[in-house]
């Protein structure tokens, strides 16, 4: 590890490349490839955000927008691959921007916080939604490849301004 850096450059680049490749898999609708990027014991959640007075927690984990494991993510992917997944057929045009990556090494895992800016447009009205938030990921190496073993995506809206979360965070 280089002096002054908590995480070496090689690790930083590997994590950054991994998250960028993950975003590309989703934007290119390669959902089965995307599913491979998660460990079999993955927990994938998105807590609900609320409007509170300053000094009180504004994240509620007791109920979530997503509450998934590998199997349920797989079911969602299978559904998207049918010809009756109406909410995403025709599909949204999406572009994911992943930035502000902060890595903390842990016990066999890397804690990786990163910001997500998800642009989504659908149909011909010219309108679009922005879904913005922070992802708290945990990455682990399996068979020499980085894999996501936990994701907690915290969206920066108390009432979501998109008609459904037919897209992954």
């Amino acid at each position, binding site marked *: 590890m280089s002096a002054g850096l908590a995480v070496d450059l090689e690790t930083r680049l590997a994590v950054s490349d991994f998250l960028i490749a993950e975003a590309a898999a989703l934007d290119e609708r390669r959902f089965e490839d995307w599913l491979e990027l998660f460990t079999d014991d993955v927990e994938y959640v*998105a807590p*609900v955000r*609320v*409007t*509170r*007075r300053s000094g*009180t927690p504004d994240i*509620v*984990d*007791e*109920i*979530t*927008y*997503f*509450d*998934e494991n590998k199997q*349920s993510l797989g*079911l*969602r992917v*299978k*559904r998207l691959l*049918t010809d*009756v*997944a*109406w*909410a*995403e057929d025709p599909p949204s045009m999406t572009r994911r921007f992943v930035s502000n990556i902060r890595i903390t090494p842990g016990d066999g895992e890397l804690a990786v916080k990163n910001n997500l800016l998800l642009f989504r447009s659908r149909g011909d009205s010219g309108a679009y939604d922005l879904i913005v938030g922070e992802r708290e990921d945990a990455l682990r190496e399996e068979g020499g490849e980085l894999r996501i073993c936990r994701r907690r995506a915290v969206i920066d809206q*108390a*009432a*979501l*301004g*998109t*008609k*459904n*979360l*037919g897209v992954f965070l």
Partner: protein
Amino acid sequence: MYMPNADIRARLEATVDPEAGAIPMFVYTDPDVYRLELENLFGRTWLYVAHESELPEAGSFVVRRMGEQSVIVGRGDDETVRVFLNSCRHRGMRLANEDFGCTEMWRCPYHGFTYGSKGEFLGTLIGAPYERQAYPEGLDKEALHLIEARVESYRGMIFATWNLDGPSLDEFLGNVRWYLDIVLGRAEMEVVGVPQKWIVPSGWKLPSENFCADAYHTATAHSFLARLKLVEGVDFGRDGYHVDPGGGHGLGIGVHDPAEGSYFPDSLEAEYARNLDAEQLGLLHRVKNFHGNVFPNLSFLIPNFIPMGDQLVSGMMLRLWQPIGPDKLEVWSWHLVERDAPAQWKRLARKMYVQTFGVSGMFDQDDTENWEAQTLNSNTALTRPDEVMLHYAMGISAAPLDDFPGPGAAYDGKFSEAAGRTFYRTWLDALLARGAA
């Protein structure tokens, strides 16, 4: 025949014909209709505002809406639940700007006017800063009391209305109470966390009528279920009963073979038996899914039980289709569960709710798709020279069952729009201010 909106009442009267199964498309989103809805419907009828489990202690409050108006639903220091317009009597500023909390008093952030938990203006010094200097002639405490709605509750569901001398909540709910007993009164229920909220570009009536009287869409809109072999054929949408309890409410009950036994947790059986009569309990034991709408915009749903591991699970919910414009609504979706359910059941029920319903739910996604496109078409129907009439005649000549245990008109099989026709009749009468809403 084209009728301009100059006389919106005449246009409604001439075109809306629920008993014939004929509803003109423009009513989904027409701004003049919406204006009438806010005044004559949301301004007059009983509206659901909260579940009692959301107000656990004296001082607890949640901020909700009645129509488009922000209200505070608070448990006072005397434990009574009251509903106030979230508006200071001085300049109309909002008193509560958070989703929920616990407080002894509401202090307006603009000029400091302060109100107790019973809505009372607190008077000199506490009520308004520098009151003696600013108002040497004194302030009329009574006149500054918060504007208060009438509140009643049923089986833990708190409702409010601005109609202070209209029908009681019991009269308003009528026959639907027997069914709400099964859905929400079978055990002590609790809200899990907070509601999910999201904005859908749809008129508010489209989802309301969908939960009220549309079991038919499931076979097409949600056909992924059958495609992925989570259910067999269309049985999950058809087998059971459609019920028109009257009053604009409506529901559908999907049932399974009684030989399969109850899908609900065994450990809660004694509590169910305490809270339900024998007929209600018998029906509960056969429930595979249970959907409905309490007029005008409160929906409930016990979704289809789906296998999760080796257990059949369902995650129930309450829904408000909160209007925020003629063609836009905010969905509020609460997950509820039996307070004394086994921990494992609670965990699985919540997972099932989130995965199948709610903003990411595999069912909800498809529904929002339909409501948005209907809304877009309704908006363009406003300007057509002819009236675009839509078809609401499913089951129009069917006779209700004469041996169904529950009250109201119950039909064999869920494929009927009877309650949808009554929904629009009740809605029309309210808009034209005919009869009680």
